[in-house]
């Protein structure tokens, strides 16, 4: 009976109760971002207060493409995966062959549930032969812990402990070099290395979400502000600007990259069974390495491929005209509904009207002609209905030589 038990004084856990007073947390960079927030245009990124824009969403985009843009990625979910079996564990969980990922390298990957449906996509950083960092949009601790049974590996979430910044744009290399990160010029695309910073270490990788020359920096939360200041000071002559998500989202679309729960629904969040997607259905089939042995979802994926049960395909579209086709329905012969646009924009870099869409096969797969999108453009309280021709085009929509050039260009 509970009556005998006295209510004890508060413990460490009870001090964490107060979180209910702050529904949107600040990231370790919040003081700096707050100071630059002229638009006060915030959104909720995984429980953090994150900027849609800071000063001008259109000009922020041009900062990515012309100078260097600083974007806070701290809310991204980060897991530290470490141990003797870390490689074998990740090989089992994720689609690509992790044995081919050398220490000091990063790859873009995805992982599936046992039915072969995509749980998420993300980036896997191999920090050492036995230590990895997995970054993703959604949270996966139960899945990772359950998958780790039988492996000599520890999985720990380090989202709060590690702050992250994306420094993207043509002058990003010069900014890092001028900030004193010597040796950063040796990083080729998807390389990573540690650099000393403020009595600690920052991990810099030549990666990003913009299709441009760019880097991502991970640092212990305590050193976040000094890293921000170091970059801003060094970047000032190179036009560095802090940006919000709207600008980044434009750059990622030009780069043809997809966003979980925007361009596809992740399997732990899909209520409706027909919204689930296999990697082949969202353009990630290339990742699947069937030679490497068992991986989560392998049997289901093989069966779906053999029995032609893959019902959808994710494609890049170029749409006539210049009106963005966001969330437009895709038609075949202007009449049969065959899919939906998940992201669309007029691309300033490609000077084309681009989109990412999910189509029901065979459309977009073997039937690629006579596709149309119906755009409802709201103009001064009236919909202008436009039926525009859509053409399948490869992604990325833009390819910038400076992204991969070695040594990186010094602007």
């Amino acid at each position, binding site marked *: 009976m509970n009556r005998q038990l006295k*209510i004890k004084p508060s413990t460490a856990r009870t001090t964490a109760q107060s*979180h209910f007073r702050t529904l949107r947390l600040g990231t370790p960079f919040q003081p700096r971002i707050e100071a630059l927030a002229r638009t006060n245009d915030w959104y909720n990124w995984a429980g953090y207060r994150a900027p849609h824009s800071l000063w001008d969403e259109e000009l922020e985009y041009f900062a990515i493409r012309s100078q260097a843009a600083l974007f806070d990625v701290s809310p991204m979910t980060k897991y530290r995966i470490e141990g003797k079996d870390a490689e074998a564990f990740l090989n089992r969980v994720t689609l690509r062959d992790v044995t081919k990922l050398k220490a000091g390298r990063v790859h873009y990957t995805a992982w599936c549930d046992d039915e072969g449906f995509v749980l998420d996509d993300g980036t896997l950083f191999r920090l050492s032969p036995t230590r990895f960092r997995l970054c993703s949009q959604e949270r996966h601790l139960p899945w990772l812990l359950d998958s780790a049974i039988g492996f000599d590996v520890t999985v720990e979430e380090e989202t709060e402990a590690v702050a992250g910044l994306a420094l993207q744009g043509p002058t990003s290399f010069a900014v890092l070099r001028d900030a004193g990160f010597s040796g950063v010029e040796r990083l080729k695309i998807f390389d990573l290395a540690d650099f000393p910073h403020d009595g600690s270490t920052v991990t810099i990788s030549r990666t990003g979400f913009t299709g441009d020359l760019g880097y991502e920096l991970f640092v212990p939360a305590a050193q976040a502000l000094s890293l921000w200041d170091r970059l801003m000071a060094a970047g000032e002559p190179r036009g560095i600007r802090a940006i919000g998500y709207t600008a980044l989202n434009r750059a990622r679309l030009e780069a043809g990259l997809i966003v979980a729960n925007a361009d596809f629904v992740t399997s732990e969040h*899909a209520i409706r069974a027909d919204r689930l997607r296999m990697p082949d259905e969202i353009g990630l089939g290339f990742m699947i390495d069937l030679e490497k042995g068992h991986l989560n979802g392998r049997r289901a994926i093989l069966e779906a491929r053999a029995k032609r049960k893959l019902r959808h395909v994710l494609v890049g579209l170029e749409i006539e005209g210049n009106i963005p086709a966001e969330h437009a329905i895709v038609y075949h012969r202007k009449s049969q509904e065959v899919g939906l646009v998940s992201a669309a924009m007029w691309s300033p870099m490609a000077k084309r009207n681009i989109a990412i869409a999910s189509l029901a096969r065979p459309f977009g797969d073997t039937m690629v002609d006579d596709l149309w999108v119906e755009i409802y453009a709201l103009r001064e309280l009236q919909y202008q209905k436009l039926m525009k021709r859509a053409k399948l085009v490869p992604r990325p929509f833009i390819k910038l030589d400076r992204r991969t050039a070695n040594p990186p260009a010094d602007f």
Partner: protein
Amino acid sequence: MKAWDAIVIGGGHNGLVNACYLQRAGLDVLVVEKNDWVGGAATSRELTPGFLYSNCSYVCSLFRPEIMRDLELPRFGLQVISYEGGAVFTRGGDYLANYRDHDAHRREFARFSRRDAEAYYRYSRDVTRQCRFIQPLLMRTAPDPTSFRPRDLGELLYLGKKFAGLSAEEMALTLRFWTMSISDFLDEYFETDVIKANFALSGIIGTALGPMSPGTAYVLLHHYMGEVDGSVGAWGYARGGMGAVTRALAASFQASGGTIRTGAEVDQVLVQRGKAKGIVLADGEEIYGKLVVSNADVKRTFLKLVEEKELPDIFLRRVKNFKIRGSSGKVNIALDSLPEFPALPKDSPVYRGDMHFTDSMERMERAYDDWKTGRWSADPFLDMVIPTTLDPTMAPPGKHFMSCFVQYAPPKVNGRDWTDADRDGFAESVISQIADYSPGFRDRIVHMEVRTPREIEAEVGLTEGNIFQGELTFDQLLFNRPVPGYAQYRSPVGGLYICGSSTHPGGGVMGAPGRNAAAEILRDLAKPNQHMSPAHDVI
């Protein structure tokens, strides 16, 4: 002598819903209610000056919005306000809260287990999927699987198609959900005891089963199927107490020309040549009607109001064996100030939600053990709310009404009837539990209404005080509710219908049984039914 088109026995929410639809369809309807007020188990009475109680049912979510709209209940004063989550207090002086904000909810659970905080996504996805499967069945008459009528075949096909529309994994989950214990079900998702206890309570409320008894997982689902204005799974307070639901229904009924007689206890249903002809009141008055609809539970209707000789014996035996066991009680408390809970910060939204003290599955199961041995739980499970934190109409400013749903309370104490001393002992088990977490609680009490199964049965008429008019276990659901062959609101007696929670889709202040029964009655009368909207789409 006047013969009414229909007489509805019992002015509970389902009886009133039924009467409203029949009256609007053009019938001349009389509702007879034994108490001097209507409402059944959805009543709000002022038992001490200035304080309005929700005497039995106390929160609202299941009541179908289609019915609120059809019967114009907002026009007659019905307003439902969502409330703000809640908490389980732990014995270590902490609590586990449920917050409406998605991220706050995760952070709160992460205080106890990061893993379980995230496992909640899969749990809520799976529960939502199951709710979406069942929800469309609420507003349809259950098919009779033994019948070859085109309509039954059509409905069976509908059920079959819906089931076939599920993935193999979902089908397996559906069957498991309808049969497994809430404890086993939660074990598939969570590791932390207090987190499991937090969810398990929805699996045992109103049910004479423990969290480890098979069948309780469905009861949880039953409590997730509701909504507050499209927010599925949300619960709210009816402004003015749950009596506001039946007050609005009664006003709507009367506005459309219906007649209500209170203080009129029915002694018997008049049956001539196998057909219901009316009712006899306790004082001997006979009232004639072309048909009779009973809002009373299936046992009360067929074992007390209808003579046994009028009923086929298999039917009779099944009604006798229908599980309708008393398992809960209610303590309503008028407070002269808001109680303080030292474990809970003063600005916590939890004060405006539901609070519990049972922080482990073990404690919950032990509370059930007491019930099995014929005693009320020494360490009861409480579902406690303070509606006046959001509804200023129920108590004077600064004062509060607290509703405590209490489980378990047996229909008989050690095999004998409840005594007043038992009732006081039961109340003390509740007050002392609250006082353990809220010092000074006793001094705030202005007035208290204590309702054991004895009081609930005597006043509301629910057999054994069972709040659902029969357990919500799979053997008593769909075409088996209340008994096989009679799941379509009809009975072996011609012209006698049943419309209470004993019928599909079951208990809670949902109104669906009353509505569905009205649809069947109008079908039998070949009357157009233009005033009943179809169920909202589940998209």
